[in-house]
């Protein structure tokens, strides 16, 4: 029963909220994660499941995203107890509850094949993530949360608007207006093209806001910068990917309607714009968590760019969805540790992390190499696949731009990362006496192992899932 994927985390969230013992509570998150992961694994084995009369369907695309989100959450969940132990005197009840609710709503969003329901789910996911951002309870985090909430809500309000346009194009096409994904794909050939175009543009902007494509990315640096590293990982690897999934669904509809070229063109443009903006804002970035936010903007750009290129690029993009998520997890968790170690996220105060928090700094450096697409890490495989798709497609100028952006981003990001890890730590920082703990370093290590694995040996089940998903996107 697919609904379990949604119910279980929500229920556990409620339990966590109600649990009196602050000792026990953090461990409910891993519990929920394990349960969710187990369920996910079970459903991934199944051919294809549906529920609520086709409103909830687990199709190949959904399998990829769901599987990844579940994995991401599983690893991050085990970071929670260690992290909360580092932050004594914080109210953990809302935090843990919100985490689990976040997982539940994200699952709902992934499963739902009714665009309206999808909208409801992603809005709820946004709302449930607001308390996570506000965890630090200071002015900065308050401001970040406000911006995240307002911009996000407006964005997905637009998304709903777009969904209506889509429904209207069906209505105009002479069918009953429906927001069921299957109906839309089935009736796609009859959809009214102008409405479809407008609908896709609005949806791209709407869900693009949630995904963090430039120039709708403005909430990202604030949110990722002020949220705990763990939340950053979940947003960058979870919620953004859900929004991406939504966009993928509309690309599918456009493709079915024979308007794939139109959609892909927009995606390529948005992708390059996002990468450019990321590169510009990373240059000389003094705040390493904001830097990670821009890196996330860049990689969202790469995702849509890959889809826009199409062909092999589609597979590359889906592969990158996984690789980028893993890399971001690695980066955010290690960055979180460094933040704890130095008590600051400005590179003026943070230098020589390799000496103060050796493991985390090394992980951070590795994460940097991974996310910038160095062989043999996973992201290299996906970015290289996308590049090849562009070149073999004869789009040399586009490929050249893509490489140029990668270079700019690397130059900017490298400067900041190296400033953080290398050199001598200040005496104030040394005085803090931070110690690496297993629970805070372990999950990051797992991420590192996985991201390397994706680069040197992609397990056949995984590549099978990815190929199926890519195929389902490619059908015109």
């Amino acid at each position, binding site marked *: 029963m697919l609904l379990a994927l949604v119910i279980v985390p929500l229920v556990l969230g409620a339990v966590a909220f109600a649990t009196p013992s602050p000792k026990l509570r953090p461990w409910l998150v891993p519990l929920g994660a394990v349960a969710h992961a187990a369920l996910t694994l079970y459903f991934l084995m199944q051919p294809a499941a549906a529920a609520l009369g086709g409103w909830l369907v687990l199709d190949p695309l959904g399998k990829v995203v769901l599987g990844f989100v579940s994995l991401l959450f599983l690893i991050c969940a085990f970071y929670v107890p260690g992290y909360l132990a580092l932050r004594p005197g914080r109210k953990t009840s809302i935090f843990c509850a919100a985490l689990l609710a976040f997982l539940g709503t994200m699952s709902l969003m992934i499963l739902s094949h009714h665009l309206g*329901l999808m909208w*409801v789910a992603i809005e709820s996911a946004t709302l449930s993530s607001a308390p996570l951002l506000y965890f630090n309870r200071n002015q900065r985090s308050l401001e970040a*949360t406000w911006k995240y*909430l307002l911009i996000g809500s407006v964005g997905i309000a637009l998304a709903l608007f777009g969904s209506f346009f889509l429904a209207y194009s069906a209505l105009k096409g002479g069918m009953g207006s*429906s927001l069921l994904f299957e109906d839309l794909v089935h009736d796609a050939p009859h959809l009214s093209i102008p409405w479809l175009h407008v609908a896709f543009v609005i949806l791209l902007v709407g869900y693009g806001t949630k995904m963090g494509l430039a120039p709708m990315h403005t909430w990202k640096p604030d949110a990722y910068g002020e949220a705990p590293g763990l939340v950053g990982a979940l947003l960058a690897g979870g919620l953004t990917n859900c929004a991406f999934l939504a966009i993928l669904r509309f690309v599918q509809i456009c493709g079915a309607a024979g308007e794939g070229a139109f959609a892909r063109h927009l995606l390529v443009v948005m992708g390059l714009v996002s990468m450019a903006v990321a590169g510009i804002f990373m240059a000389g970035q003094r705040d390493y968590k904001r830097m990670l936010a821009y890196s996330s903007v860049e990689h969202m750009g790469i995702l849509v760019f890959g889809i826009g290129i199409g062909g092999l690029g589609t597979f590359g993009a889906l592969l990158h969805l996984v690789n980028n998520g893993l890399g971001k997890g690695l980066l955010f968790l290690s960055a979180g540790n460094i933040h704890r170690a130095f008590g600051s996220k400005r590179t003026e105060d943070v230098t020589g992390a390799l000496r103060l928090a050796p493991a985390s700094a090394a992980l951070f450096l590795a994460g940097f190499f991974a996310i910038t697409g160095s062989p043999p890490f996973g992201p290299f495989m996906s970015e290289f696949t996308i590049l090849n798709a562009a070149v073999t497609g004869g789009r040399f100028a586009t490929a050249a731009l893509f490489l140029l952006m990668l270079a700019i981003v690397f130059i900017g990001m490298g400067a900041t990362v190296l400033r953080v890890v290398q050199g001598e730590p200040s005496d104030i920082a040394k005085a803090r006496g931070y110690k690496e703990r297993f629970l805070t370093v372990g999950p990051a290590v797992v991420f590192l192992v996985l991201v390397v694995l994706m680069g040197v040996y992609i397990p056949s089940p995984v590549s099978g899932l990815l190929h199926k998903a890519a195929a389902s996107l490619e059908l015109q």
Partner: protein
Amino acid sequence: MTPSLDPLLVLVLLLNLFLLGTTRLRAVIGSSALQGVVLGVLAFVVHGHAAIEAFLVAAGAVIVKGFIIPRLLYKAMRDAAIHREVEPFIGFIPSLLLGAVGAGLSVLFAQTLPLVPEHKATLLLPTSFATVLTGFIILTTRRKAITQVVGYLVLENGIFVMGLALLQAMPLLVEAGVLLDLFVGILVMGIIINHISREFSSMDTARLSSLKE
């Protein structure tokens, strides 16, 4: 398509302009609430012959948009003990003009799109677009956090109008979900506004700009 639709839609448009023009915060909230109520009525009128569910949707809209949310906002106002002016970035006349121009453009935009016959006559879609634009204008030109919330609300209203055009696409459950989300969203925003006014001793979101490059 019943003819008694357009007057209500015109009323919605007028409320948009009023929202842009008024200087009083209470009035702003009130008019947005009124707009909600009108929308509820609209929903009922559009599918008047339809079954119980249309009634439920309409009722839900009226209750949530027309009563609960305004209550929340008034409460937030009281808690924050803010004085009453709206404090826009740009004057009221310019924003009125913007609204008017927006409404005009919306009509033109609706013309460019191929409508189904029964919508050709009505102002349904132009109203929707215009309301969405109004929401955006309020969101981008008003200083106070609470007015921005109202802006968001108006944006939603515009979308709701669009939804009226295709009710069977939005079954009751989803419609309810949307309303619920809206409600929770506003609730959370209200809470945050509360914190803001405590932390910053003001709701002026222009102050909320310490996070920047």
